[in-house]
């Protein structure tokens, strides 16, 4: 599904962020990426959709290499839900925002209408469709941003901190939704409890390289390993003694 082969990514200012990073995801898997601030999680997600192009190694999405000439195809298959929904919503109302990607890929207005009403039903945001994007609450924005990606029916969805800014109830709703969402998911997060609950596997990043990788239950429960990566155990495992 997603193969990352020994990539290195350097920002234009010379800051080397990822170094010989290697891993792959199978179809249908949900994989978490955890790591301290600045570990390179967002950078990794941006490389998968070709916003950043690695200077070494290569990335394959369903067998297609991420490179200039394939970008349009890659971005149709892989959607990114950004860390901050404000960066993602830019049309004047929610409907047009959700329609943006579909229109870019040449869907007819009728198809656009059908698909939007479908996704709005699933996410329960029919009422928001005509609202102004910047008048929504943080949680509503997040759901709208999610809709704008899912409406394109990607086979791989990358999430950058999906649970940030959410109140506990909305977070719970989102988590349940993600659990039921049958696409391959790669989730960069600091919310280790969420990672524990919904991810099959986790990847621990440290200083731009894979520090550990394995089943979520094993990795996240390993106090020594987590400590060495600069992280803590998920709250539900810290125990109250």
């Amino acid at each position, binding site marked *: 599904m997603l193969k990352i082969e020994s990539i290195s990514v350097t920002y234009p200012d010379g800051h080397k962020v990822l170094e010989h990073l290697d891993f792959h995801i199978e179809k249908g898997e949900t994989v978490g990426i955890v790591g301290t601030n600045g570990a390179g999680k967002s950078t990794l997600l*941006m490389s998968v*959709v070709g*916003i950043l192009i690695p200077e070494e190694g290569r990335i394959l999405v369903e067998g297609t290499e991420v490179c200039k000439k394939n*970008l*349009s195809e890659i*971005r*149709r298959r892989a*959607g*990114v839900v*950004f860390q*901050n929904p*404000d*960066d*993602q919503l*830019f*049309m*004047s109302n929610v409907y*047009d925002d959700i*329609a*943006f*990607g579909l*229109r*870019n*890929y*040449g869907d*007819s*207005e009728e198809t*656009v209408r059908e698909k939007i009403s479908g996704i709005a039903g699933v996410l329960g945001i029919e009422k928001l469709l*005509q609202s*102004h994007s*910047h*008048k929504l609450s943080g949680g509503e924005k997040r759901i709208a941003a999610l809709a*704008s*990606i899912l409406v*394109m029916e990607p086979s791989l969805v990358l999430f950058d901190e999906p649970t940030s800014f959410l109140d506990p109830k909305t977070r719970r709703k989102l988590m349940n939704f993600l659990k039921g969402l049958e696409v391959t998911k790669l989730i960069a997060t600091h919310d280790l409890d969420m990672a524990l609950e919904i991810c099959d596997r986790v990847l621990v990043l440290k200083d731009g390289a894979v520090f550990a990788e394995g089943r979520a239950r094993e990795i996240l429960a390993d106090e020594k390993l987590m400590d060495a990566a600069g992280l803590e155990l998920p709250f539900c495992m810290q125990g109250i003694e």
Partner: protein
Amino acid sequence: MQDIKSSISQMNALELSAQKNTIIHRLQAPVKIITTVIYLLIIISYGQGQVSRLIPCFFYPAVVMALGEIPFKTIAGRLLIALPFSLFAGISNLMFSRETAFILGGIAVTAGMVSFASIMLKTALCVTAVLILIATTDMNGLAYGMLSLRVPPVIVTQIMLTYRYIGVIAEEASVMRHAYLLRAPNEKGIRMKDMGAFLGQLIIRSFDRSERIYNAMKCRGYEGRIAYSDREKISLKGWAYITVTSVFFLLLRFVNVSALVGSLFL
């Protein structure tokens, strides 16, 4: 600076009124764009001394505002933002052309005053016409209208993005201003000595933010031009509207309406 939030909400007020459903709102976007452009050309074509001839031109915005149910306040607020710019252009006229043009009630009116008045009036008319266009047509409608008038997509996209970025900069400025004032409780605004740093930071932050927005757009298949909903041809009704308004504008331009009305009563 004080009212960044309120100018954002003013921008929204204008956009929101574009969502209404009146005769004017229902006109096709290209029709409104063409009419507005013709109106602007007519206004610009008036000479410097023709102040009294310009006054009847307010008729058009007045009628459209009434039909389109556009609140006067919304337009007036934005108009006030634009006028100071032409004020500067106009004032130089006041200084340079001092010869008397005519005597009104015993006061010598200089040629400078006349052209000052006509510059201000022209600005007011043009800006009002454009504001009305925006207040009756949503941004996508405008974009698509321009496209169907064969405006190059690159330019349309630039206009749309500029519009979007103005919002971004205003939002960033408002967030930063709050952050500043929360830590400088005795200040009413940003101190002059901090202004340089503030503005520099604002530009960097806006660039960053724009970059992230641009990335998000690329992730959803954006390739230099925004795809808009289907184009439609201008309908017969649309052409009729354009013809009627244009004939009206031409009448205003070439027939001295004020003199005509005046002569009716004399």
